[in-house]
């Protein structure tokens, strides 16, 4: 089974994605991750104004049978949270790269996602 791995963003080994090149970084989980989790029923996210740190857990995603930590691809301040997920957590399954996004962060140190995997590298990891 092949998974969607768009090449307009970067990835963490723990299956989070981060957009690059904008003033803010948008964060979510990959198509592979949502498939592994199964039906997502709840997402626990930080609040706007909170600080998150690269490599640290910033939240939790729950499916019917599993709970997984979400790890931050970059450090920075949370400037937006996808509140739609509180009522419709299934968006993570339906559209992981679009409507299922989780956070927007203003990176702390220009914080681009350089240290992260590109689409080919990530695709190779999950293949």
């Amino acid at each position, binding site marked *: 089974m092949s998974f969607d791995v768009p090449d307009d963003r970067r990835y963490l080994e723990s299956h989070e994605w981060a957009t690059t090149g904008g003033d803010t970084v948008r964060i979510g989980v990959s198509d592979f991750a949502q498939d592994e989790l199964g039906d997502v029923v709840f997402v626990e996210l930080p609040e706007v104004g909170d600080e998150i740190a690269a490599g640290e857990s910033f939240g939790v995603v729950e499916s019917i049978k599993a*709970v997984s930590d979400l790890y931050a691809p970059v450090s920075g301040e949370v400037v937006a949270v996808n509140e739609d997920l509180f009522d419709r957590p299934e968006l993570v399954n339906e559209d992981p790269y679009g409507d299922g996004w989780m956070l927007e962060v203003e990176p702390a140190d220009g914080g681009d996602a350089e240290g992260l995997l590109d689409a080919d590298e990530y695709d190779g990891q999950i293949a």
Partner: protein
Amino acid sequence: MSRANGTPYAPHTDDETAAMLAEIGVDDEEALFDIPEAVSFDGDFGIDARTERGIRDECARIFARNDDLTEFLGRGHYGHYVPSVVDHLADRAEFLTSYTQYQPEVSQGFLQALFEYQSMLVELTGLDVANCSMYDAATALGEAATLADRVRSTSGDTVLVPEQLREGKRAVLENYCDGADLAVETYPMADGTADVDALADRAGDDVAMVYAESPTVRGCIEERLAAIGDLADETDALFVLGSDVVALSVLESPAAVGADVVVGEAGSLGLPTAYGMGLGIFACSDEFLRQVPGRLVGASEDANGDRAYTLTLQTREQHIRKERATSNICTNQAWVALRAAIHAATLGPDGLVDLANDSVREAEALASRIDELSGAAAPVHDRHHFREFAVRVDQPAEAIAADLEGEGFAVHAIDDHLLQVCVTDLNAGETDGLVAAFEEVL
């Protein structure tokens, strides 16, 4: 064990056992275990084999040594007459399956029974959610404290409890709080109920939870719950109310007095008082749905659109969430909750209210009869009582309790000159005897 060792009950014959051992290539069953020498027992258990009848006779001889006392004991354990239909239904094989009743695979029938139990508690408390039981009132209280710690934004780590609290409850709460770095403090009581003014003086930002009971440990009905609820609200503390499933049918609705969580006992229904067994209730508002400890049964629809029940929101629980679980309790007392639910359903709403009203009337009547005796005053507290009340005696309470025991009656001595007496429908017919015994020993 094999038949050669004298048990016809093991499923395997010696030949079958030998064949299995040969198949996996070991000489004997011992080779399958790695038990350190230091802890292995290699001796005789010293248990004489007896016939079934011999065992029955021996047990009968041992039981005959029990005191045959008429109990007027309460303080957390209450007996009401359990209708025989409870045994008949709860003992059906469908309910007594060896399949643990807290697994996701539990049968639809049992899930429905537990859903009914939860629904009854929601109705009795006026709150939104009830879990399908905790071990007892004490563990439910401990869980409420850790919930307060999780959900309250205050930096507080103090749990306030009434100074008069059943010792076992207090000890279990201390255990829970110790691990969660919470401190348990007491607030004073005034005449058997909370001293609300003293509580107001103590309330503050460092308080995460305020606990009050109605009925209190002295059997008094707490009349100022709403004031306690307001106090807790003002300081963003969780208001946890301890009560009893029968009392809840006539007391002010916990939701109406601002209770965030209700804990307590449902073991007064469906269970005898023997062995000190309890059944913990835990109900709370929707706001804390994802923080509820223990198991929750939810109603949904199956693929055909028919109503179906399921254990729900399990991601709160430790088998999934591990160290970040809301509680290290993933279990419940399903069969005991079933008994309580059958008992409550048998009584029906009116029957439950009648039972509760009798618990007020019987206590009042017995207290006034004891009060007429010289050397005793009852009730000690100028309050309404539920099932039980304190009695002040001129002589030392321990001595009076011992003398009453000599007359065939058991009551609690709770202080130098205080006794506590509990009356329910089970011993209400024995009150003449108790009053006569009091008269004898005072």
